[in-house]
């Protein structure tokens, strides 16, 4: 690898993927994430944003193209192998174990490193003190926002290099949304590379280093968050005409 590509952490190289054989949802999607970046992915409903994260995480089979992490081909690896390589994933829906307690959810997050559980629990406890206070409550009895917290905390238990977030602000009150974005930025500042899919395009583009617009299964274009915020097409399609 040349010096220029050295700080690239993840590349998606012309990735085709889908749920059913013969029907591809990602149609030659390519993108690149550098170490330490916070990447925002926006796009219309059904564009394949969630599918992209799932394909990267080995939950949707990739039929063509490849994902590269740190120079290693990670295409179609099992999810547990990707966790071992330092990827954490927070799905858009069903992202907690409802019948397990908060503490048990976090324990599952650290499943591969039980010896580090205590230590990580302290770190996570600083980020989400409320989760520790209520650690014996069943996750199924939590509100949507509280579940999002459990989900993110669970994914952070392994101290991942890369965190994949699928609409972490969905369904939250404006104040809670803000909290989520600030926290995400915070996690990113602590050295975790973040790829975040968001419907709240404005807030997402405000905090991210770079954004990708995904449409019909391909990464249509990319620019810095600030540039995309000023892009007329993005304004018209994703931010509404009032934004600027």
């Amino acid at each position, binding site marked *: 690898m040349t010096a220029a590509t050295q700080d690239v952490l993840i590349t998606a190289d012309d990735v085709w993927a889908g749920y059913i054989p013969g029907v591809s949802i990602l149609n030659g999607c390519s993108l690149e994430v550098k170490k330490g970046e916070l990447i925002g992915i926006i796009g219309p409903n059904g564009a394949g944003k969630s599918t992209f994260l799932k394909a990267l*995480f080995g939950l949707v089979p990739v039929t063509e193209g490849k994902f590269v992490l740190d120079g290693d081909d990670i295409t179609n690896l099992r*999810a547990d192998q990707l*966790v071992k390589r330092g990827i954490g994933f927070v*799905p858009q829906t*069903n992202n907690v174990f*409802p019948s397990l307690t908060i503490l048990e959810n976090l324990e599952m997050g650290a*499943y591969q490193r039980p010896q580090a559980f205590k230590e990580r629990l302290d770190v996570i406890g600083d980020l989400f003190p409320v989760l520790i206070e209520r650690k014996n409550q069943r996750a199924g*009895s939590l509100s949507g926002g509280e579940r999002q917290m459990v989900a993110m905390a669970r994914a952070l238990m392994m101290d991942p290099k890369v965190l994949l977030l699928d609409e972490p602000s969905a369904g939250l009150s404006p104040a809670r949304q803000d909290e989520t974005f600030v926290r995400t930025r915070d996690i990113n500042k602590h050295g975790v590379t973040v790829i975040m899919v968001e419907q709240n395009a404005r807030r997402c583009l405000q905090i991210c280093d770079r954004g990708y617009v995904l449409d019909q299964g391909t990464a249509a274009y990319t620019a810095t968050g600030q540039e995309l915020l000023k892009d007329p097409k993005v304004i018209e399609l994703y931010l509404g005409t009032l934004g600027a």
Partner: protein
Amino acid sequence: MFTRPDRRFYRAAALLLVAAAAFVIATLVIGGGPADAETVEPVAAGTSTATLVIQNVINGLAFGVLLALAAVGLSLIFGTTGLSNFAHGEQVTFGALLTFFLSTNEQVTIPLVPGSFTIGLPLWLAAIIAVIVSGGTGWLQDKLLWNPLRKRRVAVLQQMVVSIGLSLALLNMLQWWMGASRHRLTNASGGRITFGDFYIGTQTLMSVVIASIALLAVALFLLKTRLGRATRAISDNPALAAASGIRVDSIIRLVWVMSAALAGLGGILLALFDNGAGFDSGARILLLMFAAVTLGGLGQAFGALVGALVVGVVSEVSTVVIAPDMRYASALGILIIVLLVRPQGILGTKERVG
């Protein structure tokens, strides 16, 4: 899906108690007066209905605990893979017949192998070997059959049809191996322990104690060990379990081993309780096991226990008023009634939406 025994557990237990009490009282009222000696075996004619009912509750609880042990694997497999395994009954039979095969002093044969012989191991050793071999059959069938089907993303409905076919094939193989007659694991009558008007057979008591210990061990495994919690996590959400770094397939393999071993042990203990086992012993109680698991709440490990106790008590107590041959029908009747009142089963939770 496997929840801790929290508030809901006690509520369900209370519900169960009330239902059982109502049932018993109803039986007393309907039954009235001295019982018909023909409908029950060992109690002398002229015994009051109350005594009879209580004796049947005792028998029912014993049967329920053993049924729970046989059924808990069914529940574990359903919870982690979504499969309703119709071949589970043969797993139960296999444990009992293999124990007989290893321990009997009669001549035994193996199909296609010429000659007959006796192995004649002590019963306890035969039982231990049978449980281990049963576990091995679980490992083998997941390796050769269920795991490949899951890998190819065959839907659970199709998998269920496969399990029905497997059940029939195994049933015939068991008959080929052991013939159609019933086999007794032990000829010792064992005696009984009496307390006042009531009694329990020593063999039955032993079986119940062993089954209770095994069930307790399963509960502790699910609640107190990391592997057990991972099993519950998979029951909740296999994709998220994989995303958390859990090797879902190896834990499901383990669940198959455990389920088959527990079914085998259940079969052995039921054969002691029932004074013998035939090639279709498991098939006969398959529906009762499904009823127990459904009644308790599908996929709830503790549901299998609660459901099995209800099924056991109801089917035994019902013999006071209806013909003993009909006892299992009354258990299935209770299943329908409970599901009408609590569609999610006794311990089941309604999925929270949103």
